[in-house]
């Protein structure tokens, strides 16, 4: 967090754009690759994660004075696990087919490091309103990334988008895209494209045009998957 005062809009936009959890910070990759073989699954997973993130951020921010510092991580995990249990039961009751397709990955939202990261880095230090905005931004950023990866994989691997056929019968689907390797390839190519775009100054131009706040550069964030740094 920068020391200067941030506006509510910046709290929201930061998670969508500069610190997009999947595409920039590389957090929450397990669900982003495992359940994105169709847009519907990706969207359901994104919404479930959004709900859990929103609920836990608001709750953690509201009771932050009651949580002793020594056991805060365990307390956050318990709060997150409670919301995941709720999401799991609701999905099983409302959309049983999707719940079945997502399988164990609903339960695995508990260990999505993106959610725990937002609690530790933001919700535990900020008032409820800002925590909710931050959670909404990060959640929307996650949904966008999920639908993007899911869209590419479903269109190329199955020739459909949300189940609707896009190409004529002459299209031969690239089966590999809906298989596990396709997930790695899609995200890898997206990251390469973004890196190339950024190198040519595309990110700065977009920020000037859309007035997206600059918080920090991708190169400062680095591979956040390794918080301690390895060397």
């Amino acid at each position, binding site marked *: 967090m920068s020391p200067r005062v941030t506006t509510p809009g910046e709290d929201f936009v930061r998670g969508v754009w500069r610190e997009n959890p999947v595409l920039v910070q590389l957090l929450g*990759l*397990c669900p982003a690759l*495992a359940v994105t073989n169709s847009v519907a699954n990706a969207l359901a997973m994104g919404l479930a994660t959004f709900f859990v993130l929103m609920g836990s951020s608001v709750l953690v921010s509201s009771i932050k004075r009651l949580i002793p510092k020594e056991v805060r991580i365990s307390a956050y995990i*318990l709060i997150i*696990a409670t919301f995941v249990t709720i999401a799991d039961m609701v999905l099983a009751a409302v959309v049983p087919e999707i719940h079945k397709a997502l399988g164990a990955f609903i339960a695995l939202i508990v*260990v999505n490091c993106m959610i725990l990261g937002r609690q530790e880095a933001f919700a535990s230090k900020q008032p409820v309103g800002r925590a909710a905005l931050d959670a909404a931004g990060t959640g929307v950023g996650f949904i966008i990334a999920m639908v993007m990866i899911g869209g590419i994989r479903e269109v190329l691997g199955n020739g459909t988008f949300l189940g609707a056929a896009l190409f004529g019968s002459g299209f031969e689907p690239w089966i590999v895209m809906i298989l596990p390797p396709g997930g790695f*390839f899609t995200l890898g190519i997206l990251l*390469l494209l973004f890196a190339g775009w950024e190198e040519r100054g595309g990110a700065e131009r977009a920020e000037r045009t859309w007035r997206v706040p600059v918080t920090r550069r991708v190169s400062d964030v680095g591979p956040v998957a*390794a918080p301690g740094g390895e060397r």
Partner: protein
Amino acid sequence: MSELAVIFLSAMLVNNFTLVLFLGLCPFLGVSAKVGTALRMGAANVFVLTVTSLTASFLNAFVLVHAPYLRLISFIVVIASLVQIVEMAVKKLSPTLFRELGIFLPLITTNCAILGLAIFQTNREYGVWEGLAFALGAGAGLTLALILMASIRERIELSDVPSVARNMGLVLILAGTLSLAFMGFAGLLTS
């Protein structure tokens, strides 16, 4: 006995946790820059997976039959405390190893492979021995994937890659290629 071997091989190769099921990607991408670190990380994971499997069997048999809705919460509490105990034991017994593993030791808690193992084991209704074979296979597969990736990355370190590929993009493409290779194991256990 052969059934246990099938579970072991299936978890290690055919349904490799990292490359086919996408579980435990954080350490796979974060700790795979050097073979030595990758190996130690793999060993720590094998240990936590094994103990988690035993504890999950125990919980499923005695506690969770009375309160199935507490499954997720109790699993995560068990895993978190287990990792805490392992951390304290390693710190006491071998301070050198403790320093080498550093931040990655506590981070095993949020490794989805561990919780994933407990959940899969419950869904498939494995007994104690089957669960143990499953945990060892999953751990071996995780370690294998980590070591393969670390060996490739050590060589890339010295080669001249385009500047756009210096970040994670290239590593993910490599992971995709490895995953493609592991798809070849899919026919291994059908006969």
